[in-house]
């Protein structure tokens, strides 16, 4: 039981926090289409977070989705540190989106066959939406890596920077074993293996060098509640309106 809850919390928190970060591109995207793309993906991600928090509420007696999103402490969040990082320049945001959404796509594909039905149902739906996110990321990674010398160098350096954080997506917690044993989820190690195959094919095809997978460099901690210095300021901002009047009826 606690294994499924851990899985739902980390997935929902990843989606909520990356959704918030994506929304920070609204109005300032490098071109109008990218402004729309990051804003639309933000809306999708927050929808995914809502669906997962709803399962926690309905199947496990956790608080209402809004309460889970807005009234937990930093330590209670289980997102990976990759999603917490500030949006930075567009090259970083694009690379993060690419690395993160390839993992999301595979994760939801696996979970569409989960023995835990409420999650399998959500996964069947979400995996179709994530396809568009992946397609968007792939096409820009290819274009910019094959653009000018400067654009290629920027993509490579964004990749080198983001890669150890991306490995943190797959940080495991003790309760994972029961999920694998009960066919709820195939596990982070298997996910990472499939993810590496998929992202490497695109990155190499685009002429970039994939950094070596060095587990000692993986930026872990997020799944256990240890976060970067960037999460708390994000939560403070995200919850600012709610905190002006915590008991207001919306």
């Amino acid at each position, binding site marked *: 039981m606690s294994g499924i809850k851990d899985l739902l919390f980390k997935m929902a928190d990843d989606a909520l926090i990356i959704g918030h970060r994506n929304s920070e591109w609204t109005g300032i995207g490098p071109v109008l289409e990218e402004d729309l793309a990051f804003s639309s993906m933000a809306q*999708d991600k927050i929808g995914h977070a809502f669906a997962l928090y709803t399962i926690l509420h309905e199947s496990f007696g956790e608080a209402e989705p809004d309460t889970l999103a807005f009234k937990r402490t930093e330590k209670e969040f289980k997102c990976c540190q990759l999603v917490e990082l500030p949006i930075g320049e567009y090259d970083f945001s694009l690379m993060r989106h690419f690395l993160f959404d390839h993992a999301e796509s595979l994760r939801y594909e696996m979970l569409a066959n989960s023995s835990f039905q409420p999650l399998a149902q959500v996964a069947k739906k979400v995996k179709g939406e994530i396809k*568009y996110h992946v397609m968007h990321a792939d096409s820009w990674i290819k274009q910019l890596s094959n653009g000018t010398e400067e654009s290629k160098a920027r993509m490579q350096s964004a990749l080198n920077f983001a890669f150890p954080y991306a490995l943190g997506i797959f940080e495991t917690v003790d309760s994972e074993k029961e999920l694998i044993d009960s066919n709820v989820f195939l596990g982070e190690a298997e996910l990472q293996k499939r993810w590496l195959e998929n992202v490497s094919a695109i990155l190499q095809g685009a002429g970039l060098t994939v950094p070596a997978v060095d587990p000692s460099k993986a930026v872990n901690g997020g799944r256990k509640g240890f976060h970067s210095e960037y999460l708390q300021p994000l939560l403070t901002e995200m919850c600012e309106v709610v905190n002006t009047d915590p008991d207001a009826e919306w």
Partner: protein
Amino acid sequence: MDHSIAITEQDIWLALERVKDPEIPVLSLVDMAMISKVELTNEKCVIHFTPTFVGCPALDMMKRDIKTEVELLGIATEVVLDMNNTWSSDKMSTEAKTKLEKFGIAPPVTIDDSELTQEALDRVRCPHCHSTDTTLRSAFGSTLCRAIRFCFACKQGFEQFKPI
């Protein structure tokens, strides 16, 4: 509740046809295949409703519109979100797709549960001049369910309902 004339399931479906998708006002929620089940008892009516996109911001509005429209028939109505049924653009009827194209939005191509590919996305006909010489400009448009395309024949941008 005491009804002088009994309400039938048919009446409910007719009422639901009057509820339009707020983002595509020519299509009803029935056209969109978003109503998965209608349960009718003497006391109340329960409408099961399947969202297109999980994060669609119009969900609450549609739930409210359904309740308002069906309750005009004089029966208490409850609208529940049906997550056990996965919506797909393939479920939209041919008639609905024709209405969509007339409205100026290219209808979703059929994907038949197979993998969504770039090729599938390229088989799109311009709703203005019907040329298939079109290209994807952005997979994301004015709403979550639409992409932006461009037609080389009539040199117009247009929107497409995303196959999903």
